[in-house]
């Protein structure tokens, strides 16, 4: 049984940067299931990467203290030695594979440990059987769903024989069924093979009764606080949206179907996005919400009919379409096309579809309300996660396309910022009569601004709050 320990650790991203952790001491009990929580950007990933020995190899500086496995400093071990003790599952399932197929991926991992070919075969057979993955042996990884990819990653970790399994937001691209299965697999591994599991997640639902220890990363004290697992919420019903009578609008889709490989995601959906109203698009991770947005912005193939003002989407040039249907991207850097924050806003103002509404004064006011005024001379990419979100939303509101799709625009926002963004969003949409549809896993503080809710589950897109016109 391996013993891991973090002792008096002070860690920063650079020699002269403020530390992320200060004098942190933490030792997971062997054979336990630990949940690590905290807002995004608080340092959950950093702690996991320190335990995995990826930091400081891939960045940052240990200013004092150490991270050890069985009293040996983990950063002094070679990667192939570390892998036998600790391995990690990453947030982006598809970016953790070097090889094309499931079998090649497992062989790659085991060959790194310099095992003999028969031993490699034996271990692969065992883990594939244990995790019920044998039917995927020769499948190309890119054709698997997010949940299946994470189970293959878990199979690699298991085959390597690591006793500590780290998971960094592993469900970000995994649907509910995949999540349930992965959690069940993890629990079994903990019980039968006494694996130690540390899982980082900002969403606490579904963990009650499953975890032994609950830790909270405290960004202000730069340390880890232990909490009682009894504090974990039982599944509570989601706050409902108070649906309003819906208006009509320019963008509509009929009989819309989307697939990933040969897997159907959405079947025969139809809806008209109402103008001057703000809608919530809900559904599990991996259900196809971002894919729907990608189809509406003509970034991927679809079957069926998407129309703008009763003309099929394909009759518009992409250049025209982009000035009708805009998206606030989930990944902020995807949005920026200038270096400095003020230039982003200036560019939007220059090409705005509502130049009389967005006067210089109104833009300055909006930036001030979003608390962005002081950082406008900064490089956009260097802003904090929350500031980037606010900059994205404001730039797109200034553009003022008739249809605005927002993919997780509230991630990393504190309560005050959330309120400010939603108020600005609602006001602009009313003033300019825009149709807006929001994907947000966070409902608290959000639903009261919403006029309707579309729910995506089991390939069906349904209006669950709001009265169709």
């Amino acid at each position, binding site marked *: 049984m391996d013993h891991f320990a973090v002792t008096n650790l002070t860690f920063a991203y650079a020699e002269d940067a403020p530390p992320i952790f200060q004098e942190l001491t933490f030792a997971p009990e062997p054979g336990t299931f630990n949940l690590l929580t905290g807002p995004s950007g608080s340092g959950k990933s950093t702690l996991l990467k320190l335990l995995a020995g990826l930091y400081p190899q891939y960045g940052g500086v240990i200013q004092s203290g150490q991270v050890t496995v069985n009293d040996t400093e983990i950063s002094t071990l070679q990667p192939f030695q570390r892998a*036998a003790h600790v*391995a990690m599952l990453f947030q982006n399932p598809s970016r*953790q594979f070097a090889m094309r197929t499931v079998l090649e991926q497992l062989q*790659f*991992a085991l060959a790194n440990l310099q095992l003999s*070919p028969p031993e490699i075969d034996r271990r692969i057979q065992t883990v594939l059987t244990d995790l019920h993955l044998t039917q995927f042996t020769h499948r190309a990884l890119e054709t698997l769903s997010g949940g299946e990819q994470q189970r293959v990653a878990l199979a690699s970790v298991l085959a390597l024989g690591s006793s500590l399994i780290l998971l960094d937001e592993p469900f970000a691209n995994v649907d509910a069924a995949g999540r349930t299965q992965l959690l069940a697999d993890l629990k079994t591994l903990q019980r039968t093979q006494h694996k130690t599991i540390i899982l980082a997640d900002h969403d606490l639902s579904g963990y009650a009764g499953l975890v032994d220890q609950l830790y909270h990363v405290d960004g202000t004290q730069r340390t880890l606080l232990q909490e009682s697992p009894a504090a974990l919420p039982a599944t509570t019903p989601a706050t409902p949206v108070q649906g309003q009578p819906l208006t009509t609008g320019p963008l509509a889709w009929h009989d819309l179907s989307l697939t990933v490989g040969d897997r159907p995601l959405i079947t025969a959906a139809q809806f008209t996005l109402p103008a001057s109203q703000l809608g919530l698009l809900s559904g599990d991770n991996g259900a196809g919400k971002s894919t729907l947005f990608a189809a509406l912005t003509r*970034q*991927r193939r679809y079957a069926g009919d998407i129309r703008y003002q009763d003309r099929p989407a394909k009759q518009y040039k992409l250049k025209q379409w982009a000035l009708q249907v805009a998206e606030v991207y989930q990944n902020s850097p995807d949005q*920026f*096309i200038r270096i400095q924050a003020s230039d982003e806003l200036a560019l939007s103002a220059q090409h705005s579809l509502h130049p009389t509404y967005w006067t210089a004064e109104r833009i300055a006011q909006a930036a001030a309300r979003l608390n962005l005024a002081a950082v406008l001379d900064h490089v956009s990419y260097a802003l904090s996660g929350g500031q980037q979100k606010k900059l994205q939303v404001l730039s797109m509101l200034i553009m003022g396309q008739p249809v605005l799709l927002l993919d997780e625009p509230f991630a990393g926002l504190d309560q005050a910022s959330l309120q400010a963004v939603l108020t600005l969003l609602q006001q602009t949409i009313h003033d300019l009569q825009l149709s807006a549809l929001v994907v947000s896993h966070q409902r608290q503080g959000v639903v009261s601004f919403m006029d309707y809710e579309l729910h995506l589950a089991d390939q069906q897109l349904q209006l669950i709050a709001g009265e169709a016109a």
Partner: protein
Amino acid sequence: MTQTADTPRGLNAATLTLIMIGIGFPLTFAQSVWLNTIVAGLGLLYLIALRVSWRKVSLILLIALPLAFGSWISFWFFGTVDRWHLAWMYGSRVYAYLLLGMIVTMTVSTQRWLVSLHLHFHLPNAFVFGLLGALNMADRVRHEFRRIQYSALMRGENLRLWNPLLYLRIVLVSLNWSNDLAEAMTSQGFTENAPRTELIADPMPAWQWGLAGGLIVIYCAAAFGLRPW
């Protein structure tokens, strides 16, 4: 079960690479129409012997035709001495290069090619697996490219191929992806310059070294000794 890469047919990928470079390089300095034709012809015979899809081969040869013709015509029009010879030499050289490349790319998979270069020419593993990982991401790179273009169109700008901003964004995305992949590979035990189990057997019999060396020597002797037309 450990044999994952395609079962190889024909010559070893390393042999073919050696022939491609070993003949391709002196071919740049050789001045012979005949030798160009022989190299291209032998390459074509090899492809036919391995039953490579003739439709694909014809298509590639057809696509190269304007290039070969362009070389031919520019030397024929603008040449001052020996126009006929120079025109045909540069025209046939396009096909000699093309066929030399095709004997490698059309008979060997990328994975086998990289593994073979690793085993026989000591290409570092980090390079082999980094490149494989990158190639497996090709589809997502295309997707990302469209997304970057759309993000600009939404703001009333068209990022054309020559706009440096497009590359700034692509570089940022690539850095992120390559860092994620590198961390994941490290977590899976990949260690630069450490020995790994070699799961793919890629025999390179001595006669193939001999064949490659022999062909290169014969070519050089013919090109720089005999100097046919």
